[in-house]
């Protein structure tokens, strides 16, 4: 599976600013408090309060690029939708628990990408290599290196997040387990 996984995403830039709260900024608070974790229940509501219908316009491979403190409030619902839609996420910074939640959802995510907001505008053609830490804006002919996903976390992302990782771990443990 690892060899087939797409660490490089090519798509359009979707640019957001600084200090985006998960509740309201990423998905409506009712999705969080309603404990919706099924992607099909969350996808229609991704960025609903700032950009209704986003899910009908985005395409797999598109990259969400944000400023500092993206995803404040350690919630995972929005990352579940982004992962299911095949989107990537590149941030100037995230609170650590937001980053951990994104990794746990199997999202291709890079954080601590200094000044990345200045490198792109919504609609630019981007190419991001999350394994090696490359950010390329083909529209503006800009190339930057940023911290990639740490080696130790790549398997979690490849397997679709924590649940996928645990499922594979259990399968690898074999049939030795009895109830």
């Amino acid at each position, binding site marked *: 599976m690892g060899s087939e996984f797409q660490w490089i995403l090519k798509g359009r830039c979707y640019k957001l600013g600084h200090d985006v709260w998960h509740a309201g900024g990423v998905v409506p608070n009712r999705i969080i408090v309603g404990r919706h974790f099924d992607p099909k229940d969350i996808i229609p509501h991704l960025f609903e309060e700032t950009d209704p219908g986003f899910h009908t316009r985005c395409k797999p491979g598109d990259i969400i690029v944000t400023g500092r403190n993206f995803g404040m409030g350690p919630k995972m619902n929005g990352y579940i939708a982004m992962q299911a839609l095949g989107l990537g996420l590149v941030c100037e910074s995230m609170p650590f628990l937001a980053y951990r939640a994104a990794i746990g959802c199997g999202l291709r995510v890079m954080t601590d990408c200094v000044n990345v907001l200045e490198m792109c505008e919504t609609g630019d053609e981007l190419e991001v290599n999350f394994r090696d830490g490359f950010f390329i804006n083909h529209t503006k002919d800009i190339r930057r290196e940023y911290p990639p996903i740490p080696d130790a976390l790549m398997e*979690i992302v490849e397997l679709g997040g924590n649940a996928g990782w645990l499922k594979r771990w259990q399968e690898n443990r074999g049939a030795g387990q009895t109830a």
Partner: protein
Amino acid sequence: MPQTAVEKVLAAKSGRSSVKPGDVVSPDPDFIMIHDGVVMGAKRELDSLGITRLATPDKVLMVTDHDVIYGSARAAERGAFNRQAAKAWGVKNFYDVGRGGHGHIFPMESGILLPGMFYFDNDRHATNAGAIGAFGFRIGTEITRVLATGTNWVMVPKTVRLTLKGRLQPGVHARDIGFHFAAMLKQGGLSADLDYRVLEYAGDLEQFDLAARAALCSTPTEIRAYGVFVPPSEAILEHARRHAQKPFTPVYADADAQYDADLVLDVSRLEPQVSLPGSVENAVDISRVEGTAIDHAFIGSCGSGMWEDMVTAANILKGRRLAPNVRLFVAPGSEATNRRLAAEGLLGTFIEAGAVMLPPGCGPCNDAVIGPVHSGEVSISTATNNNAGRFGARDAKLYLGSPATVAASAVAGKIADARKL
């Protein structure tokens, strides 16, 4: 390579000579804690994956502290589920109702959690481990991976050092330091980012007993510190040696360790603090709010539930009665403290004053499952935080103070300075 205390703990538990911030390690924990509120979710998730056997059931501590006396049928169902889960998983260290107390207090008191240890915990108040010189790592719902495999990934956090200068004045409490520190950060008097940082204390720490050290761990957690570490004094080590259930090795930072920020706080002239409703960061000198009428008071929580906290409150309540308009709830941190309160007569002091004793555990600090406030009421407590809705009604006014301030206020019927009683 010079290391901070928590870096040393993580290196030792990961079989490495050293680690640095940003490294990803999979530490072998001394134990794994899961509380009553999340066992059901974790069990169902693992069951759905066919994982019915835990990696290290002997390391697992299950603790009933969040909803101890079942105020609802749903809570009773949860309790029954948890008992079945403990049985199915083979968890022998199950501190159920009436057996241990608050999971972030009794393990330190009873020699389960010892200096230099590392453990995983589903709950963010694992930071309390710093009181005894250990590191508890909050893993949230990813506790399932720890239960299944014995570990999980930990990115080594950066460390911020806070050096305390001077001795507290009589009547000023370690909780007051945390409130003041949070306010200083908010107002810009001190500058540091605590997101995913460990706050390591230094300086004049000999004055702080274990309860005071737990108090020092409380407020930083509410302003995003991921860990707190107080280097153990000889008195703390003596406590640990007296109670230790296994050998331990205390850990201290290297003198030339690298810190993300290096802060200094003079506490010698600190006044008792009260955090105004809405956030721990809204702390002011008590003189600013003295006289504010209250309806509700609570003494307990992982920040203020130890024996010394109870003694502080009892000394104020002794021979006095609560104001007629005030209800005071008291939740000792452990069954051991509860027994000692009874044996030494302090339980009588609380009851004669008119306080309501709650079972050891979180009390109203957990989602107001017990002893909540009503809309418009005013409360002062030693809860971990006073965010809107912490005790139920979102429009109630929740103040925070030290155990002394809360006890004095409950007697006065209004926010009161214990030094003036």
